[in-house]
């Protein structure tokens, strides 16, 4: 066999590998600790170890798709390539001043570190006005001097970011030409190339992050590709982008910033593929890990993509990325009773060090994970913890002040955590114009399947889907993702005065560009799809509403009517006297890869004819209930179980509450029906 497809995802703790044989549906899985090269911070070692563990000869692999957190970590830890900025005279501090915000609505503390320090931000004489007319020509001599100065200061990357370059990029383009003659590397990013929209801070940060991670990503991907080729891999390596599509390794570093959120994106793509095969196209993904919980809203089997993601405080990256939101608590969130006698969970977290008490690494504060262990929801065998001592801690710190038993206290902790997560999920779905009750909850990550049933009940969600391999979801996302190219073009004109022919030309051009890029990747595709939309608003508004377009030649009336219908659907408001403004035209070209057979993610040979509990153990649901414990891999495909039940597998525990029923589908997904929702 020489057509295996491999997905390798590097997470904070583990590197996961999924290898599929498309012809046979056969699956190999591997999980190794993530290891970083101490010299370069590269993540190759874990990937290579996982491949070795899977015992797959690389000359039989037709495609390797890689999800990496290289750029994410570099940004969050500010371990960036030394980068210089050349900008319009008078504006070098834009990247430090931001938009006059603070980290928290209440509290006057907090700090901010700009991507490029002040001494590496130099100015040059030049100026465009808002219409792109040249007010002051570019001073080319001054530019040469400053570029030379930054090179001498040891900068590896260069950003050229001028005011109003989205309206007229001539000065940025000329400056890049000149800089290329002087600059010692190829790492030059112009602000307008990644994002051709006004807002100098957002465009500048996007360009600066791109430049500052570009050399790191390129070095890492090149070394990984070389290592793979040495071991016999004969094709192009593909890399996951934050938009949920993949790109060839040769293209990825030019737009390195697009990989910053690629980890969460691949999880969402796995959910899209799983949901589509299961006939459940509307999903809220629920990824609960040790330190945080991420959610995304999937409508009609399409990943939500936003151009306005802020990866942390004052760090907006405005390129299309899968819209994954962090809603707070993870398993390590700490519970306490506050000065007023109210039970609180989070925002403080035990993190991964010392971690929850049950990790046995010195944690002393009760966390959500500890509560799950105390209530028998997590298997005591997986932890080396003294349950009696744990019970005493819950009794003293939570139970006594509230007049509850240790178990009731632990249950209260989980219930409060679920209430807050449910509230945050409801806010996310409402902000995207969706009612959570119309969705199924797709639970993954280490702790997602443990909380999902209770969370669904809290949200009024009728159904939970737990995929076959909840702990390998991101790697699976790499295997099933399509190729994708996004274009955004700002028009910003009242619809009534917009040139319709120009609109048609822009859309046609976006489709042609995206199709060329997709075809250039040389990957086996079954189909190419385009998704068109317009970002619109009523004249006088600032927020935008995305309006899907059915084809590339909409009429003026079409656009106005589609916008009004979308606005009414979202806000229940009709404003017949106010006309619309057309802000952006968006095109995504998606190169669809052949559908992957996901029915063997759990080995069919291991399945038993009937669900047979491995054991039973007491689990607390408003009181102790002796609860059957099943091994996931042994469950039959025609499953029908009634809660309560605990379903264990390699890296996840699924908790089924009393009153719920569980069935399975042909791919081995668990479908949990939650009553009264």
């Amino acid at each position, binding site marked *: 066999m020489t057509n295996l497809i491999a997905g390798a995802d590097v997470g904070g703790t583990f590197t996961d590998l999924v290898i599929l044989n498309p012809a046979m549906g056969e699956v190999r899985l591997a999980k190794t600790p993530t290891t970083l090269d101490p010299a370069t911070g590269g993540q190759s070692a874990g990937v290579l170890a996982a491949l070795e563990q899977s015992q797959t000869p690389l000359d039989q692999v037709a495609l390797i798709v890689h999800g990496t957190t290289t750029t994410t970590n570099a940004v969050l830890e500010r371990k960036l390539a030394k980068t210089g900025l050349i900008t319009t005279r008078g504006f070098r501090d834009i990247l430090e001043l931001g938009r006059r915000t603070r980290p928290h609505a209440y509290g*006057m503390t907090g700090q901010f570190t700009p991507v490029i320090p002040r001494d590496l931000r130099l100015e040059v004489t030049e100026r465009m006005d808002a219409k792109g007319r040249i007010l002051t020509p570019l001073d080319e001599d001054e530019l040469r001097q400053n570029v030379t100065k930054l090179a001498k200061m040891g900068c590896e990357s260069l950003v050229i970011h001028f005011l109003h370059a989205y309206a007229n990029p001539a000065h940025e383009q000329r400056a890049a030409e000149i800089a290329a003659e002087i600059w010692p590397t190829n790492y030059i990013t112009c602000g307008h190339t990644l994002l051709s929209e006004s807002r100098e801070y957002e465009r500048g940060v996007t360009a600066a992050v791109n430049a500052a991670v570009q050399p790191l990503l390129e070095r890492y991907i090149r070394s990984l590709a070389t290592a793979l080729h040495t071991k016999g891999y004969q094709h192009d390596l593909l890399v996951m982008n934050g938009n949920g599509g993949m790109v060839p390794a040769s293209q990825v570093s030019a737009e390195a910033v697009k990989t910053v959120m690629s980890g969460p994106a691949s999880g969402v793509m796995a959910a899209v593929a799983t949901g589509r095969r299961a006939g459940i196209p509307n999903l809220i993904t629920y990824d609960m890990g040790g330190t945080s919980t991420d959610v995304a809203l999937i409508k009609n089997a399409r990943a939500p993509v936003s151009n306005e993601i802020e990866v942390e405080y004052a760090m907006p990256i405005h390129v299309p990325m899968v819209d994954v939101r962090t809603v707070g608590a993870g398993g390590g969130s700490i519970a306490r009773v506050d000065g007023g006698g109210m039970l609180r969970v989070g925002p403080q977290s035990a993190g991964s060090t010392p971690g929850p008490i049950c990790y046995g690494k010195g944690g002393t504060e009760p966390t959500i994970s500890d509560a799950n262990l105390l209530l028998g929801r997590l298997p005591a065998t997986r932890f080396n913890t003294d349950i009696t001592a744990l019970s005493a801690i819950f009794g003293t710190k939570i139970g006594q002040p509230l007049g509850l038993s240790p178990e009731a206290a632990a249950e209260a902790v989980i219930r*409060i955590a679920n209430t807050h997560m449910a509230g945050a999920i409801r*806010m996310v779905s409402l902000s995207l114009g969706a009612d959570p009750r119309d969705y199924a909850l797709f639970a993954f990550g280490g702790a997602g399947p443990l909380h999902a049933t209770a969370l669904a009940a809290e949200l009024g969600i009728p159904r939970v889907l737990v995929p076959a391999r909840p702990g390998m979801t991101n790697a699976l996302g790499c295997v099933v993702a399509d190729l994708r190219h996004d274009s955004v073009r700002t028009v910003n004109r009242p619809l009534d005065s917009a040139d319709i022919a120009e609109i048609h030309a822009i859309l046609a051009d976006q489709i042609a560009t995206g199709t060329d890029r997709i075809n250039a990747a040389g990957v086996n595709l079954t189909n190419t799809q385009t998704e068109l939309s317009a970002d619109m608003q009523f004249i006088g508004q600032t927020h935008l509403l995305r309006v899907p377009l059915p084809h590339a030649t909409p009429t003026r009336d079409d656009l106005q009517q589609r916008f009004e219908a979308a606005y009414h659907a979202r806000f229940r408001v009709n404003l017949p006297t106010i006309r619309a403004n057309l802000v952006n035209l968006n095109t995504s070209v998606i190169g669809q890869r052949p559908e992957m057979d996901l029915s063997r993610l759990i080995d069919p040979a291991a399945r038993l004819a009937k669900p047979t509990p491995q054991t039973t153990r007491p689990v607390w649901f408003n009181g102790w209930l002796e609860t059957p414990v099943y091994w996931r891999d042994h469950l039959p495909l025609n499953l029908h179980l009634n809660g309560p039940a605990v379903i264990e597998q390699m890296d996840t525990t699924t908790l089924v509450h*009393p009153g719920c029923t569980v069935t399975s589908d042909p791919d081995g997904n668990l479908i949990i029906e939650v009553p009264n929702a």
Partner: protein
Amino acid sequence: MPETGSNTAKIDPITLAVIQAGLQQTCDEMDLTFSRAAFSPVIAEADDRSDGIYSASDGALIAQGARGLPVFVGTMQFSTRHIIRRIASGETLPPEPGDIYIVNDPYLGGTHLMDVRFAMPFYRDGKIFCWLSNTGHWPDTGGAVPGGFSASATAAEQEGLRLPPVKLFKKGILDTEIWAVICSNIRVSEQRIGDVQAQASALLVGADRLTALLDRYGDATVTAAIAEIRTLAAAQMRAKIALIPQGSYSAKAYIDSDGVVNEPLTIALKVTRTGDRLTFDFTGSSPPCAGPMNSVQATTFSSVYLALRHIFPDVPLSAGAFEPLHITGIDGTFLDAHYPRPVSGCAAEVSQRIAEAVFAALVQAVPKLVTAAPAGTSGNFGLGGHDPEKGRDFVMYQISGGGYGGNSDHDGLSNGCSTIGISKAPPVEIMEQTFPVLYRRYALHEGSGGAGQHRGGFGLDYEVVLLRGTARASFVMDHGRTGPQGAMGGSDGAVNRVEITRGGETFTPPHLSKAQDIALQPGDSVRVRTPGGGGYGNPAARDPALIAEDIRLGRYTIEQARTLFKRVSKD
């Protein structure tokens, strides 16, 4: 059914916390709906709005949206209380289901006229269960100048249209007669119907969510929970007060001038902890002033509440949290002005100076919990005129940030939002697209951070040129005379500076931070340098490496650093 609540009136701690979260989320959803559907950028972008739930009997705050503008902390309980009182006395028509009252009278529990409140009775079984209310800052409510911030107004009538509580929606239907009267009295009225729909729609969303909560947990349980939450919030605030050593802590804060009479106004504050009470005594503050820098009672109270919330952010927003706080001594001062004193500056500037006085007093008591003074001005620069290229009039507002105060742990943030706001400033590119201006500079206000072991953050330094047409400039800012206060031996941050260059001649307005109707021609320019934050701790105790770093990055010149920190070596 896993882990749902029971339907009994006996309330357990878990159900309590669940209901508290439910009430909070109801308000958060109202906030979200309001901003997303609004037209006015002041609401949609700057989030100058707030939504909450109030008691049916006395208007006391039950819950308030977490992303509401901080200056509205607790204010709507005063306006709701006035509505309830006026209904009882017959001054205002009694409510029916579907009614929504509109009110913006500053003297009836308000802020300034631009903050327009909606209040809707929420019914269960034919009786009012509670009130839902929200406030939105309308871009104009009439008056002498576009936008309502007249720096030289001397009476409320010059500031805009004043509405007592009247029913704008009757049984769910907009009263088109009242609406027509309002539209005839405000500028750019065409788009306001969008804001009114958004503001009403937020209340309806709140009613839906609240109905779902009550249906699920039962009215008796929720009623019991609301009472319990109030008691617990009071207990929590008392627990915070217990962190403050017994005693009195005094501080003063100054407003440059009222915009009419060029003399500073003083806020004198003595904070006293006795047992679990905290008293804020403003005796000795200046009398009511002629210009618009007066505050009204509701705004003064809210300013104290918001300062406390910046110090203790985790105390829930509930009337209970305010119970242990006692505010006295405002009678006869400019902090409790009555009709017809002009008040447009109360929410934007006076509130921040009250908060500064609270910070300056309490940093002495709990130095690890409070920062040195932040810039504390919204930096409102208004420019109104005619753009010949677009063939229309324009009104531009530039709001800006300033440095935050240093604190026991680290240096202050640069260019942070005003204490009373949480909104972003508009990008230069958007301003230049929209208005006939060009920015020459948008930069760090070098040298502005107050010296200290942990220095203050830096302010902003921007310069704007008028490109075409004619325009008039107005300024409502503060901290032009004295900088934001340092703490624990730290120095004050740099003052706010306004420079106008007209016909080649540069001058500073007589009131330093306030001026109105300065006529500009093309080529004339305005430069504003906003305040830096106060320094925290003795400047001589600052790590020399950090001083050297600030010099290397050009944040201070060597000379400035030598003067400010008194210990810079020759190299």
